[in-house]
């Protein structure tokens, strides 16, 4: 029976149109709806499914971030994770925190908690890095199964179907391994009210990167965060003939 560590990140809700701060230092996060990174919901769902199939014995949800990150840990607990670990990083230190730091934290926790699998989302929809799972696998020297579309436990390890550019690919990995969830891995469940109530009683440990011996010295400097160029709004055409005429005008036909 395996132990699964699942990483969850609190991000601005996917449906929110973000606004860049006038001083170009970042985007406005105060007073903006946040929720669990959508790919992480899929990662949590997969971990819970493994538990339901009696492949996993325990699911530990981890989030690295400010105090509010505990909300997404509670969400994971309400979905079915057994306990949570909050690694507190806030303020300027969090603004400059990169996947390299998070991967070192997750790798250390994976070893401390004797995890056999680490499941993460393939990317966070705020920084769009798509790095943490690969880097966690590298720190641990474990195999990586990224962009997972399907994961099956076999006697020897895992058989993973991955989403790649030309279609799908199947690989086999040994366990322990690090996985990253793509959108089509599963459909995450909603937490029911009784489960939300129960989740409040589940254990949530709070630690810092320092407790884990992880150095969070910034690796980058933010030069600026700016609005993307705005497209000139175009014109509506009344019918297909007018559309064809416009395409001709533009030299497309």
């Amino acid at each position, binding site marked *: 029976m395996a132990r699964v560590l699942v990483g969850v990140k609190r991000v601005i809700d996917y449906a929110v149109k973000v606004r860049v701060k006038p001083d170009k230092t970042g985007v406005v996060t105060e007073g903006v709806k946040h929720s669990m990174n959508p790919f992480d919901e899929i990662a949590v769902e997969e971990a819970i499914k493994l538990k339901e199939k009696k492949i996993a014995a325990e699911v530990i949800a981890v989030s690295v971030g400010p105090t509010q990150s505990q909300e997404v840990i509670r969400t994971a607990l309400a979905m079915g994770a057994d306990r949570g670990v909050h690694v507190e990083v806030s303020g300027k230190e969090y603004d400059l925190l990169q996947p390299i730091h998070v991967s070192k934290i997750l790798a250390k926790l994976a070893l401390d908690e004797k995890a056999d699998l680490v499941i993460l989302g393939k990317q966070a929809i705020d920084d769009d890095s798509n790095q943490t799972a690969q*880097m966690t696998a590298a720190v641990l020297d474990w195999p*990586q199964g990224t962009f997972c579309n399907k994961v099956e436990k076999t006697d020897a390890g895992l058989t993973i179907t991955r989403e790649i*550019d030309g*279609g799908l690919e199947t*690989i086999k*990995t040994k366990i322990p391994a690090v996985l990253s969830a793509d959108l089509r891995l599963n459909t995450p469940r909603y937490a029911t009210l009784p489960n939300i109530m129960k989740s409040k009683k589940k254990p949530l440990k709070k630690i810092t990167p320092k407790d884990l011996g992880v150095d969070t010295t910034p*690796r980058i400097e933010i030069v600026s965060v*700016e609005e993307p160029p705005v497209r000139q709004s*175009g014109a509506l055409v009344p019918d297909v003939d007018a559309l064809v005429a416009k395409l001709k005008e533009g030299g497309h036909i």
Partner: protein
Amino acid sequence: MLSSNTRNLIRSGLLHRCKSTLVVAEHNNEALNPITLNTISAAKKIGGDVTVLVAGTKCGPASEAVSKVEGVAKVLVAENAAFKGFMPESITPLVLAAQSQFKFTHILAGATAFGKNVLPRVASKLDVSPISEIIDIKSDDTFVRTIYAGNAILTLRSKDPVKVITVRGTNFAPAAATGGSGTVEQAPAGEYASQLSEFVSHELTKSDRPELTSAKVIVSGGRGLKSGDNFKLLYDLADKFGAAVGASRAAVDAGYVPNDLQIGQTGKIVAPELYIAVGISGAIQHLAGMKDSKTIVAINKDPEAPIFQVADIGLVADLFKAVPELTEKL
């Protein structure tokens, strides 16, 4: 005392002399993936020597193609059964061996499923913070990339000694495929076979159409198509343009088309000359993948659809009437 200007000049001059970039080529043992050419352009923009690493079970075609690319100084070839399936567990130690021999200042690959899978693993082993999917290069340590699904543009300065970067192909013109004369050498030898993972098989979507990320014209369908069969309307229209066909997440999730056709934040990023969005509302997630297209055409029956806010030409109409009519009139 040197003025700070002079010091900067000396510093940048020294850096210029010392810069050298490794581009990890992407290929399928038969042909070079065109994004490698865009990545070589990015490498040239950084300055310094450009070396390209070709690893695989059969490297002849790709290494030959790469050696002729303008601006490539050297091609490192690693042909070995260990690289079957281009698994990151075996490619990573090879890149590290090349790095330890040649001390590159920059390591680049295209931001494809391959590049995104391998480069962060390499960066971690070098203890540096990788930089994903850059869209521009300001200097040898300052790069531009998008965050929040393309809704903000981040310019960052990397403090790491080695810059490990994936490159968004659509933002860099491809390097000329001829005119170069790179020397071909063997990559550092080593035991690269990994016991950790193993490639089994792949199931590739077969298509005679151009590849999505490099197509000049893309016809893309969304939930409005209502079924996979109805995508035939788009294939017929695409045939008139010699276009590739793409899809929104809604169309993929509904099973109308395979996932590798998905355009958006979590699918492919495209920037064709002409993008025709049919029955696509234009969610933030989708716009992230196509809003750099030169001309955007939207056909949608909902005049309030957000896609019309980015479309150059919009037609409010029932796609089941408008698309066949358009196909016929072209």
